[in-house]
């Protein structure tokens, strides 16, 4: 079986967000782009599964919807260890368009296990994986914190409100993964970086999917007023303030 990991290209998590002068978009100048943190963990887990299950997994591929500027991020995924990469040549307008383009890709190039990060750290939609599974008619499991192959089935742990569940499903499936799926993201080795230059990166034309939403104005959170400091020798004063000023205790 083959595993596809869907990737998103996001600003590094230390980025301070600035807006364009008319607030119509985020000012992308000077931003360092990285693989979305959850997607990076998903890729790490996919590679671990491939390496520990003998010949069971044929290949681990990565896919992204984006224009040429996302290719360095795809090359990084190849350097980390993915076997090949797909880029759908479209600057997507929303999550549905991403999901529909990925569905088109998967219908033409079937995969048994598809991994998506639970959200992207830019638009925080948590939508692509779920939408993709519906468009493909595949089983989806969300909030997945562990995944392994067992006796021809896929064994997963998912988080639910106030607990967790152990689940068994048959492929094909879309697993939407969160923290815990892998301990630490893998870092490319020098050999991996060299190898990534010659690994296949296929560029596919968009299948012309529609978007359902559009982004209007952006705004930034209102800065807070100054912090009120209380002396460490006078802890009861803090409690008094919380009780009678903030009225929260």
């Amino acid at each position: 079986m083959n595993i596809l990991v869907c990737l998103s290209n996001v600003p590094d998590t230390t980025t301070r967000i600035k807006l364009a002068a008319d607030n119509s978009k985020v000012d992308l100048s000077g931003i360092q782009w990285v693989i979305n943190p959850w997607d990076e963990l998903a890729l790490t887990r996919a590679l671990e599964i491939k390496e520990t299950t003998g010949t069971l997994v044929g290949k681990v591929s990565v896919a992204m919807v984006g224009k040429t500027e996302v290719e360095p991020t795809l090359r990084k995924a190849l350097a980390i260890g993915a076997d090949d990469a797909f880029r759908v040549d479209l600057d997507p307008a929303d999550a549905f368009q991403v999901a529909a383009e990925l569905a088109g890709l998967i219908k033409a190039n079937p995969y048994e296990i598809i991994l998506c990060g639970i959200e992207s750290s830019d638009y925080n939609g948590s939508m692509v994986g779920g939408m993709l599974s519906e468009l493909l008619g595949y089983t989806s499991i969300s909030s997945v914190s562990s995944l392994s192959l067992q006796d021809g089935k896929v064994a997963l742990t998912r988080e639910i409100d106030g607990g967790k569940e152990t689940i068994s499903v048959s492929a094909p499936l879309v697993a939407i993964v969160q923290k815990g799926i892998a301990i630490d993201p893998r870092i490319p080795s020098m050999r991996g970086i060299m190898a990534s230059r010659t690994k296949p990166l296929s560029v596919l034309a968009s299948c012309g999917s529609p978007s359902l939403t559009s982004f209007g104005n952006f705004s930034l959170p209102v800065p807070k007023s100054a912090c009120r400091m209380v002396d460490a020798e006078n802890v009861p004063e803090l409690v008094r303030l919380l009780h009678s000023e903030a009225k929260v205790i």
Partner: protein
Amino acid sequence: MSVLVFIEHREGKFHKGAFELVSYASRIANDMGTSLVALSLGDVPSDELSKAGAYGAGKVLNVNDSRLSQLDNAAWTKVIEQAVQQESATVIVMASGFTGKAIAPRLSARLRAGMVAYATAVPSSYNPFTVRKKTFSGKAFSDVVINTPVRIITLAPNAFGVHEAPVTAEVKQFTPSVTDADFTTKVESSEKFSGKVLLTEADIVVSAGRGMKGPENWGPIEELASVLGAATACSRPVADEGWRPHTEHVGQTGKVIAPNVYFAFGISGAIQHVAGISSSKVIIAVNKDPEAPIFSVADYGIVGDVQKVLPQLIQSIKEVKAQ
């Protein structure tokens, strides 16, 4: 036309999160001049179902089918779709928690209904249908326009509050058409973290970071949380070190929360951490480093040793509570 709100129960009871959702959906239904229908799956007594009326739901649909007792994304999506069709709903409201994340996007693709996740307010405009949401994990907000006739919104926790708007709720059984073949997710076992306050729903959160020096020092954090009826949380390094479970990690790659009160003990306040807590109404920070960035987002702060401050704080809060 109607607004449909999907509400979840725990062991047959609704909690604050469900009532907040009904309150939010009720405001939208009111703005649109239409009625509000609540949908609940599972074994919930009829007097509990009718409680949704207190927050504005004139009709409550209940599906009591044992096959739906565990989350099966595709099957639940099909059930909600049928309720949407029966009620001619044009707006569907869900929570942005685990279930919402699992179901809402599937429903969106199935109905070709545009979706906004992590909404922080009711629509600012109904034509075009515009909803504000958090982006960049709380570092920014975006106004998203939904361009489809049916719209789905998932609400960020604690973003709207619980507001009473009493009507008499008509409780009705709803029998969707699902077959055994619709269920593909086999739950082998489940584990409940019983008795704990859910982090994303908590009014008060007591959180701690690497300044605690080690997992053996978490006693006072647990004690303070118990005195306040709070949930416990932690920073990313603490979860990565395995001092605390990943389920407690708040921040950009963990949970994004918005409690009334957030205590940060020994947390420096890296930008990724602040992104996950900046919507908290009151932030209290205790850190030995006066330059720690957490103080720039905190409302109240103490520069000092957390191990010394915590016992005094617990003692003092107990005294205030006893009054």
